[in-house]
């Protein structure tokens, strides 16, 4: 039973990651390889808020969201002026820089040793969230809230402009919409919610180190979005469930963990290639990435 609860909590964390990433990838056609960096920034900011500042849960979440939003704003302006492949490369560079900083700034992040003993956050300063059931509820509430907010964004005039940018940026400009401002909004909102995934992960696992937020993780998040499908909410949710459950299924089939981990990567790779050819809209998406 505990095992299933753990899987559901991880699915909830990945739903936040994929639904947030979809706003960039599926709605705005901005392929970002820097999402794991924001995930890591969120996790490390959570540690700072909880262990140094001793914030209760809600202020800690707000601080993490504000911090990731601010950092994303700082890098959004120069990178979002770049188009297509150059934007992908810029986010890749950002991902590598953040990983290097987390790994080497030992005096602050403890680098490769990681940060153990991250405390359970306290709701309203009284009720500690610890144990599987409270985390299940906490992660479920946060993922449902993320789904609700992104559903509203996608089905609003704001989402319509993002779709317009995805389809034809020049047409959007000629209709009087400032495409750069909308892309910055999408980038900042996406990053702020990815920060929430960071705080849930850090406090749930109670230990973080930079390897949880490296380029592999960034590709993993992107693969989850692309496999699930983009352009709606359903696709990224299905993608999150798929990538979390797949390795567990492999384990049940009887593959040893060491082989299952590598096999998992191979299956993701083949899945991506297969989807690009036979189902570009992913398992449950509605938009075919160009």
């Amino acid at each position, binding site marked *: 039973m505990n095992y299933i609860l753990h899987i559901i909590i991880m699915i909830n964390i990945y739903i936040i990651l994929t639904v947030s990433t979809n706003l960039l990838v599926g709605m705005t056609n901005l392929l970002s390889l820097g999402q794991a960096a924001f995930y890591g920034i969120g996790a490390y900011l959570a540690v700072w808020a909880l262990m140094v500042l001793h914030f209760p849960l809600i202020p800690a979440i707000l601080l993490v969201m504000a911090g990731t939003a601010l950092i994303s704003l700082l890098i959004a302006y120069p990178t979002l002026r770049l188009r297509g492949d150059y934007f992908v490369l810029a986010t890749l560079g950002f991902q590598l820089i953040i990983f290097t900083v987390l790994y080497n700034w030992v005096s602050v992040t403890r680098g490769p040793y990681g940060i153990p003993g991250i405390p359970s956050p306290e709701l309203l300063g009284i009720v500690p969230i610890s144990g599987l059931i409270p985390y299940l509820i906490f992660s479920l509430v946060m993922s449902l809230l993320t789904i609700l*907010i992104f559903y*509203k*964004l996608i089905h*609003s*005039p*704001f*989402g*319509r*402009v993002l*779709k*317009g940018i*995805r*389809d*034809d940026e*020049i*047409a*959007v*400009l*000629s*209709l*009087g*919409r*400032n*495409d750069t401002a*909308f892309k910055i*909004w999408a980038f900042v*909102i996406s990053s702020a919610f990815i920060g929430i995934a960071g705080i849930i992960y850090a406090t749930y696992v109670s230990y973080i180190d930079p390897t949880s937020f490296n380029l592999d993780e960034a590709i993993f998040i992107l693969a989850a979005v692309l496999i699930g499908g983009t*352009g709606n909410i359903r696709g990224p949710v299905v993608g999150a469930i798929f990538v979390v459950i797949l390795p567990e299924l492999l384990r049940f089939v009887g593959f040893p963990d060491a082989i299952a981990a590598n096999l998992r990567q191979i299956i993701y790779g083949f899945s991506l290639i297969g989807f690009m050819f036979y189902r570009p809209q992913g398992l449950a998406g509605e*938009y075919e990435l160009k």
Partner: protein
Amino acid sequence: MSKARFIMDDIILQIDSVKKSFVRNIINKRGEEADERFFIIDDLDLFVPRGKISALIGGNGAGKTTLFNIISGLVDADTGSVVYQKEKDPVSLLGLPPFKIARIGIGRMFQDNHIFPTMTVLDNMLLADASRFGETPFVSIFKTKSAAKKEAERIDKMKNIFTDLFGEKNPFWEKRNDLAGSLSYGQQRLLGLARLFMGNYDLVLLDEPTAGVNPQIIQQVLLVIRKMIKEKGTTVFLIEHNMKVLLDVADFCSFMSHGKITAFGTPEDVIGNDEVRKTYLGM
């Protein structure tokens, strides 16, 4: 040009001494590869009279679309000035980003449609509305009631535009929930034109509005262009290769050759010009 100014004292767009060059790779006389500066727009002067339909004609590569791109802010000119006389205050367009040029009242229809193919006909129209209310994330999440009210107003406006332009039983209203990419090319062209009615434009730039469409759609396009002038008082500046269309709708015509305007007048005058007949019409 000064003579023309005597004729038209109400000018909405004034273009003076505009140059635009590109560097292109050539083989020089010695058979070596070399870079050469090529002027696609070469010291061009032009004006567009307010409240009229002006046409721009010229051969392929003459620089017509580049000129439209300069006016729209999509391409920067090297030198010169482009001044838009919205009302009393002149606005210099060079250096302004395209979205600001659209907001001050210059609309654009592109040669290759530039509709949003994966969005519905409805969303294509609503995204073109002059009002941008509800397009911030804050309003989208927290002020859904006022945003919904604005959306209802936009849909009404869209329905009225479709009815006014294409009659009570028009395919666009019926297909409003279909993806715009599923419309025929001619319908996409009409949608691109109808979209301009959602904005508050004083001047619209139409790049070959009748290219690649059948005679029935051409008639509808012409009807829509006339409505722009008659009902909205919008000035129309269009690029056109169809001489019948030109004679049918245009009040004035400019002929562009090698980046310059070499003939200006009524369409009949310009078509009758020796240079135009020889170098463009092949007569």
